[in-house]
């Protein structure tokens, strides 16, 4: 077992599944390093290098560079999945979903249902989300609630290198379309990742801190921040449970409800926009099913309902941070 980065963990999962199953293919812009253009092969491996090294091992037939046309190559991936391959397609930034969303929500997400369970669509769409990289409004969004909204899609948001590998392996082996969200600010984060293959089941939340005073549910990169807040609060004698749902569809509501029934106090931390976002969804479900357990109003820690700002000071203020999480916990404990 070695320390690996989030980027290496995802690469290793795809590599091991490509070795294990010849039907697994990779496609996307610059995934093989600029097919047909002059210069070094495998120079890129995707825009941030996640698929680097796959083309030399598996060849151009299984690692495809695509034109800059998301509607075309995501559509091709959906078709390939419906007809027997297991494509891992890279929709570079999730902000680009606008030009290929029909292929995802109206085609891939509907096949199993509309063909009476007789069609499967084992597709993985890898995509980057998240603010903090000074990439402005069109390359910084956290759009997983949009996909979570669509029945028929599975939505995965790994919070650490360990989760990234196990969830990617599960995503590739899953027979349904999976939208796999990678936080671009986490690619260089490292942690223990087993060398051998393993899977983390969808719909099972992870508990990263345990305490009886309050519950924090945090998603994706926010899990790290919630853990930091919990550790600081522990020094003040406030013990907080932190829950990482790992997947927003399916969502492990049971683990959240069980914790809220113990603590009576809930903070939900989410980097997506507040309106119709994950924080709103989770708090609504808790209100419906565990209202009597609540001892204080639920606090939501999200960005404001604005586009992601480009000005660095504003962008930093936009993203939920440890002080805001700690303050929200303080508020639910005081209420």
């Amino acid at each position: 077992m070695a320390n690996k980065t989030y980027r290496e963990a995802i690469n290793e999962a795809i590599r091991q599944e490509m070795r294990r199953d010849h039907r697994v293919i990779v496609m996307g812009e610059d995934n093989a390093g600029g097919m047909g253009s002059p210069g070094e092969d495998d120079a890129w491996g995707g825009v941030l290098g996640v698929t680097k090294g796959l083309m030399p091992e598996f060849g151009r037939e299984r690692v495809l560079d695509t034109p800059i046309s998301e509607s075309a190559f995501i559509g091709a991936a959906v078709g390939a999945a419906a007809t027997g391959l297991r494509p891992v397609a890279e929709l570079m930034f999730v902000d680009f979903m606008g030009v290929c969303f029909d292929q995802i929500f109206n085609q891939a997400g509907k096949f199993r249902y509309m063909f009476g369970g007789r069609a499967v669509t084992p597709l993985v769409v890898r995509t980057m989300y998240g603010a903090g990289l000074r990439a402005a409004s069109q390359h910084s969004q956290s759009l997983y609630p949009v996909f979570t909204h669509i029945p028929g899609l599975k939505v995965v948001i790994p919070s650490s290198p360990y989760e990234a590998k196990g969830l990617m392996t599960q995503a590739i082996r899953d027979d349904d379309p999976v939208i796999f969200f990678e936080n671009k600010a986490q690619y260089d984060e490292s942690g223990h990742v087993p060398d051998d293959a393993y899977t983390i089941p969808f719909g099972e939340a992870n508990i990263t801190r345990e305490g009886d005073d309050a519950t924090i549910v945090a998603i994706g990169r926010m899990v790290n921040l919630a853990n930091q807040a919990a550790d600081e609060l522990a020094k003040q004698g406030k013990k907080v449970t932190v829950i990482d749902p790992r997947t927003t569809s399916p969502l492990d509501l049971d683990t959240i409800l069980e914790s809220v029934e113990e603590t009576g106090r809930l903070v939900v931390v989410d980097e997506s926009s507040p309106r119709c976002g994950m924080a709103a969804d989770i708090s609504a479900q808790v209100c419906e099913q565990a209202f009597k357990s609540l001892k204080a109003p639920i606090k939501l820690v999200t960005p404001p309902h604005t586009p992601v700002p480009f000005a660095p000071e504003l962008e930093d203020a936009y993203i939920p941070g440890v002080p805001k999480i700690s303050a929200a916990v303080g508020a639910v404990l005081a209420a």
Partner: protein
Amino acid sequence: MAIQPLTMPKWGLSMTEGQVAAWLVEEGASVDRNQDLVEIETTKINNVYESPIAGTLRRRVAGEGETLPVGALLGVFADASVADDEIEAFIADFQARFVPEDAGEEGGAEAGPRTVEVGGRRIAYHDRQPAAADGPPLLLLHGFGGDKDNWLFNIDAWGGTRRVLAPDLPGHGESAKEVGSPDLASLTADMLGFLDALEVERVHVAGHSLGGAIAVSLARAAPQRVASLVLIAPAGLGGGPVNDEYLTGFIGAERRKELKSVLQMLFRDPGLVSRDMLEGVARFKRMDGSAQALTAIRDGVLPGGRPADDLNAALAGFVGPVLALWGDADRIVPPPAEPPPGNVTLETIAEAGHMPQLEAAARINARVESFLAGAA
């Protein structure tokens, strides 16, 4: 008695810090050696730190809930005759000088587990080799579903004067998950192969549960290579079969809650099952091939809850010294009504379940150390 510091213990190779969960003794109280002193949570397990010092606990320096590095000051022991300001000066001096061990070397070549090929399959292991090693090394064999880190509270205590080897059994931990069709003889051969690969001729063997059965089988297969046996709740020598609810539950548990209730069967105090312990087991169970390996080992090595071989007969034929230890609250392998035959000392560990090496670590460590010293 002069002023004596009580410091954060180091339980195993990977422990860098611990959290003081609760003090069990008031300031000013007189404390016996090995008396329960303070509950400490580590990333692996919650445990009670049994006092290494007899005397008066004058100060509780570490607060409950505080997380401190290994070696940090937890409290101060001194006679009532020592003045308060002397104690304050001692604490101030200790804190000023204290430098925590570097915690940043995780995964370093020294601390991390090693691997070796045995019969074409990977065996991962801890190898603790003190500078002045004396006598045969100690081979530690964990139980069903466990791994080499089950010995985290023991490996330092026993590794002070001798080399300690703690492998992951085939199919377990970080060892290869391909186990074929194992039986007790093949696992025994694997462990002999492991010793061969490391060019280790003769060992003391300590085995827990399934590992205890393998230890006895090893002593039968190669008596000249086994200096002594320590058997902790060994499978096949108890008063009945291994609890099938545990074996089947462990293999079948898929969700955290199921797994937690299964793991709690291992301990007298179910509160010892920490979040990280649960996560560690869940991570093992998620590995490709682990469920198949566990099923194959249960069916092949423990059919009906016990090895097919008569281990009592095997033990009767072993001439070396044998120490058998059983927790009085063991719900997995019930203790035998009578001591096993042969040169066996059977002792019951009070207030401990199936894993006394974790639950009553200080007592087990001291008892096994004195046994090994006498058996050398």
